[in-house]
C-alpha cells in the first residue's frame, strides 16, 4: 500500500511538468484559438457564435488555393528530402566506417547551429541578382546580364529541403543502423539484384524511419514561415503567411485562428492518409525509429 502510494506520487511528480507544458503551451492556446475561431464578427465590437470564419475560407478561392499550394509544395519538399536524405542516411549507417560516421553526422548538424534567419540570408547572398552565383556566371561568360535566382518556387523548395533534410536523415540513420548487414547480404545471396534488395528488404525494413522522417519534415515544412517568405518574396503564397496577415496586417484574430485550425486539420489529414497508404501506425512508427 505504502509502496504503491509512493509510486503514484513519483509518477505524478515526474509527469507534472510535462502535463503542465502540454496544458499551458498546447491545450490552452488551442482552446483559446477555438473560441476565437468560432466568434463571428457581425458589427464592430459585436461578436456572435458561428462558423462564419470558416465559411469565409470556403468562399475565397485564394485562401484554399494557398492551402493546397502549401500542401503540395510541402509534399514535394518531403519527397525530395526523402530522395536526397535516404542515400545519405544509408551511407552514414551502412557504408561509412565508425569513425567517419560521427563526423558526417556533425556535418549534417551544422546548418542547425545557424539561425533560420541567417541561413535564409545566406541563400539570399548567393542567389540574388547581384549575388555570388549570378556574378560568377557572368564572370565565366555564361550569361550576359545578371539573373535573379530568388523569388521563385524552385528556390523556395531548395531552401526548405536544405532546412529540413536533417530531420529526415536522423530517423533514417537510426532505423538503418539497427538493420543487420547480414540481412542485406542474405538478400543478395538468395538471388536478388541491387534493386530488388533495396525494394524488398531495405525500404520495407526502413519504413518506420521513412514514415517518421516524412511526418516530421512535412509538418515542419507546412508550418514554416521564414524560409518561404524570405526566399519566395511577396508571391510565395505560403499558408502561414496568410495566417500571419490575418493576425497582424488585418488584425482579424478570429479569421487567423480559424485559418490556423484549418492548417492543422489539413496537415493532420495528409499525415493520416500517408499512414494509411504506407500501412503504418503512428505508434509503431514512433516506437521503431
Amino acid at each position, binding site marked *: 500500500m505504502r509502496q504503491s502510494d509512493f509510486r503514484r506520487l513519483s509518477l505524478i511528480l515526474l509527469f507534472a511538468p510535462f502535463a503542465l507544458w502540454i496544458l499551458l503551451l498546447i491545450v490552452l492556446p488551442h482552446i483559446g484559438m477555438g473560441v476565437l475561431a468560432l466568434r463571428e464578427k457581425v458589427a464592430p465590437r459585436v461578436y456572435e457564435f458561428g462558423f462564419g470564419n470558416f465559411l469565409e475560407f470556403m468562399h475565397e478561392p485564394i485562401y484554399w488555393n494557398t492551402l493546397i499550394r502549401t500542401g503540395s509544395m510541402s509534399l514535394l519538399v518531403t519527397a525530395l528530402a526523402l530522395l536526397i536524405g535516404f542515400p545519405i542516411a544509408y551511407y552514414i549507417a551502412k557504408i561509412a566506417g565508425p569513425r567517419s560516421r560521427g563526423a558526417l553526422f556533425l556535418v549534417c548538424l551544422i546548418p542547425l547551429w545557424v539561425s533560420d534567419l541567417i541561413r535564409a540570408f545566406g541563400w539570399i547572398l548567393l542567389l540574388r541578382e547581384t549575388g555570388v552565383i549570378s556574378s560568377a556566371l557572368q564572370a565565366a561568360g555564361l550569361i550576359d546580364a545578371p539573373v535573379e535566382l530568388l523569388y521563385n518556387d524552385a528556390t523556395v523548395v531548395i531552401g526548405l529541403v536544405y532546412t529540413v533534410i536533417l530531420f529526415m536523415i536522423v530517423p533514417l540513420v537510426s532505423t538503418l543502423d539497427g538493420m543487420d548487414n547480414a*540481412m542485406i*547480404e*542474405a*538478400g543478395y*545471396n538468395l538471388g536478388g539484384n541491387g534493386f530488388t534488395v533495396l525494394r524488398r528488404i531495405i525500404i*520495407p*525494413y526502413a*519504413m518506420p524511419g521513412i514514415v517518421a522522417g516524412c511526418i516530421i519534415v512535412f509538418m515542419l515544412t507546412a508550418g514554416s514561415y521564414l524560409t518561404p517568405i524570405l526566399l519566395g518574396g511577396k508571391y510565395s503564397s505560403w499558408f502561414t503567411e496568410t495566417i500571419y496577415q490575418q493576425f497582424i496586417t488585418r488584425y482579424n484574430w478570429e479569421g487567423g485562428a480559424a485559418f490556423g485550425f484549418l492548417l492543422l486539420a489539413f496537415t493532420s489529414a495528409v499525415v493520416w492518409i500517408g499512414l494509411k497508404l504506407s500501412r503504418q501506425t503512428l505508434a509503431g512508427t514512433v516506437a521503431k525509429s
Partner: protein
Amino acid sequence: MTASSEFDLECEAVSKSFGPVRAVDEVSVKIPSGSFFSILGPSGCGKTTLMRMIAGFEDPSSGDIRIKGRSVVDVPPNKRNVKMVFQHLALFPMMNVYENIAYGLRCNGVGKAEIGRRVTDVLERIALPDVGERQIHQLSGGQKQRIAIARCMVLDPDVLLLDEPLGALDLKLREAMKIELKLLQHQFNTTFVYITHDQSEALVMSDRVAVMNNGRFEQIGTPQELYHRPASAFVAGFVGDANRWSGRVVEVSNPHARIETSAGLSALCALGNGQKLRPGDRVEVFVRPEFIRAERLNGAPTPDGNGLTGTVDSLLFNGANSRVLVRSKNAELIEADVTLTGGADDLKPGEAVRLSWSPEQAKCFAAEAATA
C-alpha cells in the same frame, strides 16, 4: 569439366589478406557432391572469411574457387548457386514465413503457382507445414533455424553454407538440431559446408572435417581420422580431449620415441603422422583420457607400457563420460576415463592409483611456436 560431377566445390590456394592480417592462407580443398563437410577451427582463424569468399561477399586476394567445376571468382554473389545460412539467420522480419521462402524464387522469376507449390513442398520437408502465415517473431529458435535452411533449399543450391547456425541456440536445442541438420542434409542430398568452432558438432555431423588454424587447413579427413590419427599437434589438441605434456626426445626407435616430459615423466610414445624427430627435439605429447587405465594400487606388477602412480584428486561425474583427475607425484593433473557405477568398487578421492596406457595411444609431435 571432368571434375564437375564429382566435386561441388573446389578451392585452390585461396588466400585473403586484410591489410597485414592474413585471414585465409592458401586453402585448397575439394568437396565431393552430396557430402556434409565441416570446417572446424578456433575463433578468428578465418572460417567466416573463407565462407564469405565462397558466397561472393569477399574477393580472394589470390587463388580460385570453382563450383561444379566452373570458376566463380568473377561471378557476383546473387549469380552464384551457393546459398548461405547466416550465423544469426538473417530472416527478413518484415515478411512472413511464406514470403521469406518465396523471396529467392521471386528473384529468379519463378511463376506464382510454381512458387506456391515449392514453398508448400519445402515447408513439408522441414516438417513445418502450417507456419506459412506466421511472422518471424512468432517462431521458436529451432523453427527459425529450419526456416532459414528451407529458404535456401527451396532454390536447389549446389552448395549450402552454414556459418555456426547453432551458436545462438541453447544447449538442449543445439543437441537436437545437430541430428536434425544431418537428417535434413540426407533428405535434400545437397552438399553442406558447415562452419563451427565446436568439435562435437563437427565430429557428429560430418562426413569429412577440415581443421583450420591461423587461416590454414591443418588436416582434412573423416572424424575418425582426425580423432585417432591427428596430423599435427594443433589437431591433436583441438579435436577431442587430451592430456597434453611438453617434453624432450631422449631417443628415437621408429615408430616410437622415448620422451622425457618437463615434469620428469619418462614415456614411450608413438610418433605422430609424418613426424621426424631427433633426440633433443622439443615435443608435445597427447594422450586421450579414454586410453588411460586407472586402477587401484594393489601391489601386483603392471604390464609393460607407460604408467605412473598418483592419488585421486577428484571425480568428475558425468554419467557414462565420468573421469578421474589424478595428481601424479610431480603434482601434474591427469585426466582418465573411469566407469562409476555408484557401487563400493568406485574410486574415491585420496586413493592411490596406477595409470597406464599403451605407447600406441600416446602421440608426440614436434612442438610449434604457434600452437593454441
